[in-house]
């Protein structure tokens, strides 16, 4: 394979997948590196997507499988990029494949091992609300559907090994280093969540019924820990009133990040509608400061939520959330800035919408690739107007949330943009034979 005819994509979320599929379908070789055991990224965790209310995994899974099946795509899951050297047209890459303690060739994903594994730990995919075994796939539709032993929690009881008739379990597996030569690199590391405990006035971590939106999304999801039944974690009761608080940590000069995450107003609206679908009796309040309705169909979506679904929007960021330690019920204090009155309201569940922030790991990635980061930790585009996916390093491109806040379609479009630029650079750079 010619180095210049292949591309390394870092990050297996929707942006990374889209870039990979675009590049692969046009005949370039793609190495898709993802540090978790499965591709799919954040979108896989979502129940539905705004404003169409599509079932997220339903529209995502076919793409994931396509990535898996595509002859031009090599998935390097549970892997991390360690070194990159060289220049556009010919980068040399060193990737560490962490041991799954599973022989991927042999594992059929049948799951007998997990059934017998005695160790139960909180499931990251369900934001710790659900549980998984020490040998696991993050979620049923995971791609590749290969099991992984998580070293910290494994007891080395070898029960899985005994149960696996495919003899796929290999607890002596060692980390593996993969060396690649590629012509271009596409970075799509996505985002992580602001630690809302830094805004202690909202009591996250202190009060059981204060959740963050992604936890709540799992709670709503049919494939989530409660099988899509909307329940209060403190007492399993069906909530009668739920309040969303926007901008927790975003748009903040202090105790957060100064930018707007761009997606929260809409996903909160989506989750609000889902609540009304699940429990028509349950009231929903969204506490916001400014509704960001700039996207295609957003305003209509909000209008629908208000008029057809009776979602209540209150222009106010609550000052604090208090808990009644006996009942677990919550009280929010806020000034309704439209009525100029300060008052309180009770809620069974409070959902915090945390700022979506660039991954802390971007720093390392930046060092490895020589990329410049801005003050927030986003990768800097070469020219935010005319070269939005180019970086200070020729041949290395960025797309998705790690470039700047955006929603799924914007990420998808930009992923294609990065793919186009990668292909362009490859087309222009002299090809080098590598063996």
């Amino acid at each position: 394979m010619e180095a210049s005819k292949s591309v390394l994509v870092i990050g297996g979320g929707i942006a990374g997948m889209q870039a990979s599929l675009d590049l692969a379908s046009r005949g370039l070789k793609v190495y898709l590196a993802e540090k978790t055991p499965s591709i799919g990224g954040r979108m896989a965790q979502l129940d539905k997507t705004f404003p169409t209310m599509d079932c997220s995994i339903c529209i995502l899974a076919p793409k994931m499988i396509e990535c898996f099946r595509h002859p031009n795509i090599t998935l390097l899951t549970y892997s991390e990029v360690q070194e990159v050297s060289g220049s556009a047209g010919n980068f040399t890459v060193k990737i560490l494949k962490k041991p799954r303690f599973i022989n991927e060739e042999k594992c059929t994903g049948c799951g007998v091992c997990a059934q017998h594994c005695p160790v139960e730990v909180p499931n990251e995919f369900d934001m710790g609300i659900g549980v998984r075994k020490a040998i696991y796939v993050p979620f049923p539709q995971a791609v590749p559907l290969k099991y992984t032993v998580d070293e910290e929690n494994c007891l080395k009881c070898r029960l899985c090994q005994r149960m696996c008739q495919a003899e796929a379990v290999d607890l002596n597996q060692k980390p593996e280093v993969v060396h690649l030569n590629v012509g271009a690199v596409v970075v799509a590391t996505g985002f992580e969540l602001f630690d809302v405990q830094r805004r202690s006035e909202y009591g996250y971590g202190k009060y059981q019924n204060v959740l963050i939106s992604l936890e709540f999304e799992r709670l709503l999801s049919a494939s989530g820990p409660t099988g899509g039944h909307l329940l209060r974690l403190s007492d399993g009761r069906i909530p009668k009133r739920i309040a969303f608080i926007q901008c927790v940590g975003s748009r903040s000069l202090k105790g957060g990040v100064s930018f707007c995450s761009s997606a929260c107003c809409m996903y909160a609206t989506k989750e609000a509608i889902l609540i009304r679908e699940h429990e028509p009796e349950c009231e929903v309040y969204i506490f916001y400061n400014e509704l960001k309705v700039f996207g295609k169909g957003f305003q209509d979506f909000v209008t629908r939520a208000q008029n057809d679904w009776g979602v209540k929007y209150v222009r106010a960021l609550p000052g604090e959330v208090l808990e009644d330690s006996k009942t677990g019920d919550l009280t929010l204090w806020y000034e309704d800035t439209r009525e100029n009155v300060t008052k309180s309201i009770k809620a069974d569940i409070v959902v915090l919408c945390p700022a979506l922030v660039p991954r802390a790991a971007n720093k390392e990635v930046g060092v490895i690739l020589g990329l410049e980061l801005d003050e927030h930790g986003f990768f800097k585009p070469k020219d935010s107007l005319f070269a939005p996916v180019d970086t200070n390093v020729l041949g290395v491109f960025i797309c998705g949330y790690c470039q700047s806040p955006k929603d799924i379609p914007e990420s998808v479009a930009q992923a294609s943009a990065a793919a186009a630029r990668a292909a362009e650079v490859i087309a222009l750079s002299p090809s080098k034979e590598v063996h």
Partner: protein
Amino acid sequence: MTFEPRIVGFLCNWCSYAGADLAGVSRISYPTNIRIIRLMCSGRVDPVFVLETLANGADGVMVMGCHPGDCHYVEGNLQTERKIKMLKKLIARTGLEPERVRLEWVSASEGGRFAELVKEFTNQIKALGPSPLVGEKPDPNILEDLLAAKATAGDFRLRVLVGKEKGMIDDGNVYGEEVSQEEFDKTMDEAIDAEYVRNKIYLMVRKEPLSVKELSKRLDLDPQAVLRHMVVMRRRGMVTVDRIEGTTPLYAALEVGR
């Protein structure tokens, strides 16, 4: 022994079949009665398939597709919805219970829902009892009704109506006139009635030549209506005069052209 319904499910590949997969993956158990046929899209489900299946003794039929808006093929499922609506109306005119057919939306993440629906439907069918068409000796009248229905569903007129329904209601008819759902349903009902009766008549006169009078007795329909159908059916080349007994013509079915 207890009655174990035989249920056939037509599932779309992208959502419902995946949902059924997830039910398995999550080890959610449900009655074994359902037999699943995978199609690319629920839009592929031809009402004729369903009637054929029922005629052959299925106790129930489930059609499942993506939730509206989720369809992998934009809006195949909306077409299905219209087809099944028509189909149920049609079955209602036969001796069979329309409840034996059920359309449901199941997404790829709704393994639980899939199991729930199958359980629920199985029980419903159990309550309903075995189909009169099960076994070696199916009820001849109902069978004939169903064959008529099948022929009707395969017939140009209903298919074209169903096919154009969405278009007409969304963008108006060829003359650009708005067509309301009500108006349309009215037309549709009339069409179903007429075509169903005609197919029944056809099946009857196929066994033995019959007179309008006799037909109107068997169908308990006023002779004039029957005669009107006869006229249409002659024009369509479905029937012809077999012989005249005294003053009454007896009609017979024409195989030609069918």
